[in-house]
């Protein structure tokens, strides 16, 4: 009896499927298979200036791929990992799980922030899906000596996470080299926000600066939520440093520290990582922002002949200059597109193809992925605030 009911219901469902026009039975004749590229970035609130231009780079790569035609139609599946305007690792993890659950997604571009990556990479690693970040710079996401084996526990030998940007352990040292060699600083004070990114870059700065022969007078952490930096800046002033290095982002103190430096009469150069190279910093620090230095773990696409076409297309489409990571995101998406074209929309094959990427010609230079998934393209840009704008100053290649 029970079996008969089951059989009847199966038949009923089949009948329904056959009755509804356009579904089941006759396969729809479509020109191309739809292939999705998952994207997870902080898109809303105060993070919009980070996520939106980065996502635009992905969209541009997808547009171009679709215009070129071929057997696949590429689509973006976008997720926002900002909660209340702040990037959120738990939200990123949830987003990535949803992307993995969507079988049409062959690879993921993202995330933007390192701490989000710590939450998402274990998930994508277990699923064996390729994940390429345009901007996560924490070395602990890839390098075993920084604890990366913890984030790829499921398949430690099958690298699935790649990044097209250099890492903090390079950003920090290049910032230190820049301070020591270009700015001729010999004694520095360091402040960091005690977060993964901020402390990472500050520690690497300290190591390299000492290696060059410089003196680190003090290195303090900032209690979360601090607004008043007069006391710590007074202390730093009393140490008489040549430069103040800040590890962190604008909202964890980067902006307010710069703003309050003149309050205590601290008139020395101020340098930070890419966490302060943003318009937000200019708003928070106000006039005091002038002259600040910041490193960005990416090549300046504007200075590269190969990227001129991208920049033109970007400006034409979005009516503004590309963001710091737009070109990186474009390249990240393009790698996945090229992989799909080479081996088909199969997650395992795409991952293997990307892992073996050698001498890949891109708009940000020709590079390979090393055994940890890091780019061999190790160029760091230095920016400076001039006339209330971050302007590209120089770029330095990292050498050991």
């Amino acid at each position: 009896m029970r079996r008969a009911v089951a059989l009847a219901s199966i038949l009923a469902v089949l009948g329904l499927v056959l009755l509804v026009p356009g579904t089941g039975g006759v396969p729809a004749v479509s020109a191309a298979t739809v292939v999705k590229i998952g994207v997870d970035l902080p898109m809303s609130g105060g993070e919009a200036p980070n996520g939106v231009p980065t996502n635009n780079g992905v969209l541009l790569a997808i547009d171009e791929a679709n215009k070129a035609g071929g057997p696949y139609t590429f689509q973006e599946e976008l997720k926002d990992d900002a909660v209340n305007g702040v990037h959120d690792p738990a939200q990123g993890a949830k987003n990535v799980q949803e992307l993995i659950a969507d079988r049409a997604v062959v690879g993921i571009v993202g995330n933007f922030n390192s701490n989000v990556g710590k939450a998402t990479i274990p998930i994508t690693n277990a699923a064996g899906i390729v994940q390429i970040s345009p901007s996560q710079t924490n070395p602990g996401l890839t390098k075993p000596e920084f604890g990366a084996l913890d984030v790829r526990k499921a398949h430690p030998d099958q690298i699935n996470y790649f990044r097209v940007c250099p890492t903090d352990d390079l950003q920090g040292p290049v910032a230190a080299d820049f301070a020591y060699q270009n700015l001729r600083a010999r004694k520095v004070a360091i402040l960091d926000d005690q977060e993964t990114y901020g402390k990472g870059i500050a520690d690497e700065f300290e190591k390299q600066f000492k290696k060059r022969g410089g003196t680190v007078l003090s290195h303090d952490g900032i209690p979360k939520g601090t607004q008043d930096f007069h006391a710590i800046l007074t202390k730093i002033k009393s140490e008489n440093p040549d430069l103040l290095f800040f590890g962190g982002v604008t909202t964890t103190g980067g902006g307010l520290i710069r703003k309050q430096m003149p309050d205590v009469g601290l008139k020395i150069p101020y340098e930070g990582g890419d966490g302060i190279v943003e318009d937000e910093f200019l708003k928070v620090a106000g006039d005091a922002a002038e002259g600040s230095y910041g490193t960005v773990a990416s090549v300046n696409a504007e200075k590269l002949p190969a990227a001129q076409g991208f920049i033109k297309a970007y400006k034409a489409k979005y009516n503004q200059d590309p963001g710091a990571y737009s070109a990186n995101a474009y390249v990240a998406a393009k790698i996945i597109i090229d992989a799909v074209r080479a081996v088909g929309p199969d997650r395992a094959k795409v991952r293997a193809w990307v892992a073996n990427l050698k001498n890949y010609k891109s708009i940000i230079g020709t590079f390979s992925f090393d055994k940890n998934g890091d780019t061999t393209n190790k160029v760091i840009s230095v920016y400076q605030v001039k006339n209330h704008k971050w302007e590209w100053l120089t770029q330095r290649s990292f050498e050991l």
Partner: protein
Amino acid sequence: MNWVLFGQQLINGVSLGAIYAVIALGYTMVYGIIELINFAHGDVYTAGSFVALATLVLLGASGHMAAAALAFALAVTFAVTMLVMGATGIVIERFAYRPLRGKQRLAPLLTAIGVSFSIENLLQLWMGPSPVPFPQIVPNPFFSLGPLTVGQMQLVVIGSSLVMMAALQLFVHRTRLGKAMRATAQDWMAAEIMGIDINKTIALTFFVGSVLAGAAGVITGLFYGNIWFINGFRAGLIAFTAAVLGGIGNTTGAALGGFLIGFIEVMTAQYVGFQWATVAVFSVLILVLIFRPTGLLGQQLPERT
């Protein structure tokens, strides 16, 4: 020991502590009268910064104004902000706390947290999730006090806080309304029998506390030049700690606690390590509470059975 540096940090500590002290007053007054920890108070302070910003923008205030016009704009901003926040305090009390008064103690505590989140999110809706620049209309030149220097804004912060604390003391101890507040705090039932309008008196307490928080919001906006919708969280937590440290329910204690925390924070930054500042504050709190559970100056508890 570099005494000049110590003195310099003392100035920093007093100006930091003055702000904590003013916010702490609001916590301690409300606790003193209805034994409620008003977690929304820190957010009322931040909302004050936002209202001040809106007022300044409406007035078209900028750093290029003549001194007289600037003084006028500032006076209007203070008046508007303090009134708006005072009214907000009354509204919060009327709708979030009064309906629950006398029921149980946990419920108002939870609504207080709810009100706190509501204010934070309203502020975020209003001016967005990023820090908002606050017009820098008061110049910040430096004055020398012997080997020490003090910024004009630091003087403004310290001066205005002291004025507010003195005004509060006068209000509580020298006026009829203040007397009604003290009576209600001591025993609201007896106060009611004596003809004191309890609802009005409690509303007044919220009004005064919120007025002070609003003024603190204006001052910090001017001082730090940035306001952010979540600033009230940490400020509120620290100010609450100051109130407990000094002896919650005790206005003098709240002021003392505020200055003490400012002092601990700057001295930790100078001599121990900035990252330990918050740890140091709470360690001192724990030590004080172990040896003096009612805070430094003792709690002025309502005498109830």
